């Protein structure tokens, strides 16, 4: 096929379709001072001169110092956990360290075996039959799970998905952006104000037809949903169950395969808590598992184990007929890549901790959250909002504006939590706090004392 660039006419038609006058208008979001004008004599005049390495190092050290080393009590989807030094020491060895995942079976047995081990670990954490080699992140993973459920649920003619408001707000936005132009409707499901969970009794009794119900576990408030009742409701109403999980929590909690009578059908989630540093928001990775019956609808790459001509074990990509290089426009997804390096770190992290280690991290995080909530709610004017069991996060309510309190805490070297004011205005001055195993009693007391001082000021 020849390479044919867009003609002027093509460009005008495309601009017309989205209601924009010129290509320059597409860059409006970037301040003019930061854009260069190709018509200028020297379009790069705004770019500063180069700096010597020593000066760059000094500049970057200064910027890193500006971050300080605050004590972090923010969770909300990205979690601070202890990562053994060996994890990234091994991950960044030359044999693994690559921006792109090498898939050639003849050249990359090590990487392929590691991905296979990763899939095995994910399948055993979630209890599901199969796992793929990862997706981009938790949020886009949910979007892929929604698309997959609509394809897989052939009994349901609807393209409607029940999506609880207890699902991470960013995940909901991301999923909506990806699926809305494919005729799929995400119907919001409100939560119980006392429990912070989806009340199974609130599920539509005479529902329209839904392709799937999304169940976050733990949910965005840290609260544990009534997964058995929700799963059974979905299956008895012809809907599939999409579990959105924190994989670390599954070290302790009931695996999605055991929910209700039949278990969840698709499991997705954010892999960051397993050995990936928070790093200002990424790169992270998404996990995805499902029942065997749905494997041909699953997006992403899958590594399989086979034998070579001599009968020796070997690893190779498998079930590629789902993928875009073979199925073209009918492919399960355009996502045909994975987050190889993050998955490498996660696999090594899980191998080092073992099942017992993961369980201990989860249990200690849960215990620290309890201690944190007790410490904070002992302060006058601070209330615990929800009465249902929760994992390592909780919602507390303050009597003064959350943003001001968070700013004052930040001045005192405490990242106090994630404000829920914008996403959940009905909760008032609500703050989502988190304590992982990285916090001890001294850290927690320090937070409580500083919060008390700020509230009494």
């Amino acid at each position, binding site marked *: 096929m020849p390479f044919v660039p867009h003609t002027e006419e093509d460009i005008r038609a495309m601009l017309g379709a989205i209601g924009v006058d010129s290509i320059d208008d597409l860059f409006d979001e970037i301040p003019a001072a930061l854009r260069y004008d190709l018509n200028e004599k020297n379009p790069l005049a705004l770019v500063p001169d180069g700096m010597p390495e020593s000066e760059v190092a000094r500049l970057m050290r200064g910027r890193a110092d500006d971050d300080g080393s605050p004590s972090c009590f923010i969770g909300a989807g990205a979690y601070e956990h202890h990562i053994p030094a060996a994890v990234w020491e091994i991950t960044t060895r030359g044999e693994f360290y690559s921006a792109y995942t090498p898939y050639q079976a003849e050249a990359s047995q090590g990487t392929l075996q590691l991905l296979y081990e990763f899939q095995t670990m994910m399948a055993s954490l979630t209890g599901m039959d199969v796992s793929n080699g990862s997706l981009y992140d938790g949020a886009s993973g949910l979007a892929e799970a929604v698309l997959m459920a609509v394809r897989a649920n*052939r*009994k349901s003619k609807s393209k409607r998905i029940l999506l609880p408001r207890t699902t991470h707000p960013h995940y909901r936005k991301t999923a909506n952006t990806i699926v809305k132009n494919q005729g799929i409707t995400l119907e919001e499901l409100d939560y119980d104000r006392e429990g912070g969970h989806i009340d199974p009794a609130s599920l539509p009794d005479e529902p329209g037809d839904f392709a799937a119900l999304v169940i976050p576990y733990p949910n965005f408030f840290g609260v544990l949903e009534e997964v058995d009742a929700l799963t059974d409701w979905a299956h008895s109403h012809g809907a599939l169950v999409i579990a959105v999980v924190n994989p670390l929590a599954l070290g302790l909690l009931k695996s999605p395969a055991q929910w209700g009578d039949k278990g969840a059908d698709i499991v997705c989630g954010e892999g960051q808590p397993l050995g990936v540093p928070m790093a200002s928001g990424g790169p992270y990775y998404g996990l995805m598992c499902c029942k065997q019956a749905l494997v*041909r609808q699953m997006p992403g790459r899958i590594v399989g184990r086979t034998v070579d001509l001599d009968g020796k074990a070997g690893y190779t990509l498998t079930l590629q*007929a*789902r993928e875009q290089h*073979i*199925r073209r426009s*009918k492919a399960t997804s355009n996502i045909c890549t994975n987050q190889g390096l993050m998955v490498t770190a996660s696999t090594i992290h899980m191998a080092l901790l073992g099942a017992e280690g993961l369980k201990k991290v989860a249990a200690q995080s849960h215990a620290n959250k309890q201690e944190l909530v007790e410490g904070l709610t002992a302060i006058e004017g601070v209330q615990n909002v929800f009465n249902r069991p929760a994992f390592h996060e909780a919602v507390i309510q303050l009597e003064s504006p959350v943003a001001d309190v968070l700013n004052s805490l930040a001045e005192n070297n405490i990242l106090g939590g994630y404000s829920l004011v914008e996403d959940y205005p009905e909760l008032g001055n609500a703050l989502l706090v988190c304590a992982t195993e990285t916090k001890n009693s001294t850290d927690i007391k320090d937070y409580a004392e500083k919060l008390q001082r700020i509230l009494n000021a």
Partner: protein
Amino acid sequence: MSNVPAELKYTKSHEWVSVDGDVATVGITDHAQDLLGDMVFIELPDVGATFSKGDDCAVVESVKAASDVYSPVSGEVVEVNEDLADSPESVNNDAYTAWLFKIKLSDASEVDEMLDAATYSGVAADDSH
């Protein structure tokens, strides 16, 4: 030259049909299985599903490719060949006994519009060049 039984009807997209009363049995032709190679998975429609002529209704996946099967006629699926779940290779062994599904015709005249064996042989021969 592939096997094209004279008593069957065909489509340009390589499905065959055999009609018994108001029920049509559908499969893919010997020529199609030959092009696709070893079958590894066949995704069949649900019993009770309704299709219009030309709708994609099944997927045949081989070691080389995954291809859609288009419904040669309009109607409701009344039976699918469950045996194919465990032995997709039977399509390679004999494409004309390894049927995919049976569909209750909603418009019997659609069968008359299909290709006869001689015309289909021509299509398959052209296709092979």
